[in-house]
């Protein structure tokens, strides 16, 4: 069995990083969260535009996603930062996270003080967390404790012929070792149903996935719009992709020949070893959130057009097989697989390169996005603003 070194958490999960999450419960306190995180090297601000004017399932999903970020194994400590009058209740979020993460503290601005006061207080709390975290050490554990998210964005013709098939080889290898792989981007499965049907372990999983694809297709039909324009996007079209079907058939290569063993909703956790589908939008940051909520400690992100985005709670490994963009945005890429397109590297070798990069990232090597400070975050809103 392959062993790797990770941080063990109280709830039985393992982290590949030991960070501090500063989680605002409402957009009103974003600036305070950002200031705190800017002064503490291990801290990340999970800023988002919501927390207020949310109802029903939309509110429940936002709350649940923030809770998942607080209890994510890559975080060793959490500061919940609330205003005091929002619908995402700061004290409730704090209590829910604290059950699984003992290093959790709470500031509510309307009870504690103004901007400068709360920044100072937050920095003090996070510096204390840093001391606690610096004493924690990685422990040797089995690779089956890894969950890897696979995602693509800014796709072009190289994605479907080189980088995604390499990730597909990786998916096959790491799931054979007992790890979990999660994928989403439901829109970008439209047209790949025949391949998915053959990969699904049973009909129930296939029906779940196709019903989610149908929801999106029905929405486009009800809105009387052609998906082409966003799917594929102008950049995808410029990169050689003509239709959503073509984009989807390239995207599904990230799964390779591995069986899909489960299918879950946005915000739920992947529980089975092997490949799990998560119902997420194709939108990159929303997909990263969905995959992280499912438990991904690392995200592999393939791109042909190039994108710098990282994610707050998970290192993002950027892979491209487009030689031009690798040269233009060099500092943003962890792996260059363009030799596959040139014919001098095999997809199997590409898959090995992805595998080795994942292992070294899991053991602490920073990805390009991390080195450059890309720790983006957003929530995924599912209903319009009513009030």
């Amino acid at each position, binding site marked *: 069995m392959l062993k790797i070194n990770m941080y063990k958490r109280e709830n039985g999960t393992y982290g590949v990083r030991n960070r501090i999450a500063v989680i605002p419960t409402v957009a009103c306190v974003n600036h305070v969260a950002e200031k705190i995180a800017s002064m503490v090297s291990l801290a990340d601000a999970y800023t988002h535009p919501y927390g207020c004017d949310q109802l029903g399932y939309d509110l429940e999903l936002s709350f649940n996603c923030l809770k998942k970020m607080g209890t994510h194994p890559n975080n060793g400590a959490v500061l919940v930062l609330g205003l005091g009058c929002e619908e995402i209740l700061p004290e409730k979020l704090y209590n829910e996270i604290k059950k699984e993460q003992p290093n959790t503290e709470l500031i509510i601005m309307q009870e504690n003080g103004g901007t400068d006061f709360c920044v100072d207080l937050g920095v003090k709390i996070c510096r204390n967390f840093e001391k606690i975290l610096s004493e924690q050490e990685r422990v040797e554990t089995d690779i089956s404790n890894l969950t890897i998210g696979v995602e693509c964005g800014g796709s072009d013709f190289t994605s479907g012929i080189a980088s995604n098939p390499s990730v597909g080889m990786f998916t096959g290898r790491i799931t054979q070792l007992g790890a979990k792989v999660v994928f989403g981007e439901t829109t970008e499965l439209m047209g*790949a149903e025949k391949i998915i049907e053959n990969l699904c372990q049973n009909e129930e999983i296939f029906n779940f996935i196709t019903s989610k694809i149908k929801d999106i297709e029905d929405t486009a039909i009800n809105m009387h719009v*052609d998906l082409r324009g966003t799917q594929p996007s102008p950049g995808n079209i410029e990169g050689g992709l003509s*239709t959503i079907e073509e984009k989807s058939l390239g995207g599904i290569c990230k799964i390779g020949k591995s069986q899909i063993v489960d299918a879950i909703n946005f915000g739920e956790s992947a529980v089975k070893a092997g490949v799990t589908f998560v119902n997420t939008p194709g939108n990159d940051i929303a997909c990263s959130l969905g995959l992280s909520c499912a438990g991904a400690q690392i995200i592999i992100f393939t791109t042909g057009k190039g994108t710098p985005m990282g994610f707050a709670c998970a290192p993002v490994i950027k892979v491209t097989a487009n030689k031009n963009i690798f040269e233009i945005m060099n500092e943003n890429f962890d792996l260059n697989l363009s030799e596959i397109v040139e014919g001098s590297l095999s997809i199997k070798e590409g898959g090995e390169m992805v595998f080795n990069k994942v292992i070294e990232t899991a053991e602490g090597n920073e990805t390009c996005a991390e080195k450059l400070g890309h720790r983006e975050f957003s929530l995924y809103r599912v209903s319009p603003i009513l009030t």
Partner: protein
Amino acid sequence: MKKAIILSQNDNAATLLENVFVHDEVEVFDSEKNSVYVLNSLSNINRGHKIAVRDIEKNSHIIKYGHVIGKASDFIQKGELIHIHNLESERGRGDLC
């Protein structure tokens, strides 16, 4: 000769691995690196874009990866560029409803 690839034997659209100009000769390889077609390009086509490896009737399917990626909105001649001007998606078409 310029290079293009098909990803499955049934594909009628090949992906160009280099920029191609009208009248350029294009050699199409399969994923096992076997040479399968030699075409005369009828269009200027950018690297990464698609070329028809045989004549494609209007309303018939365009195949890549061995699967349908849409249908031809016009007759497409062997050697012609295949892109959004002559390839229509059949999915998510609320504009047609």
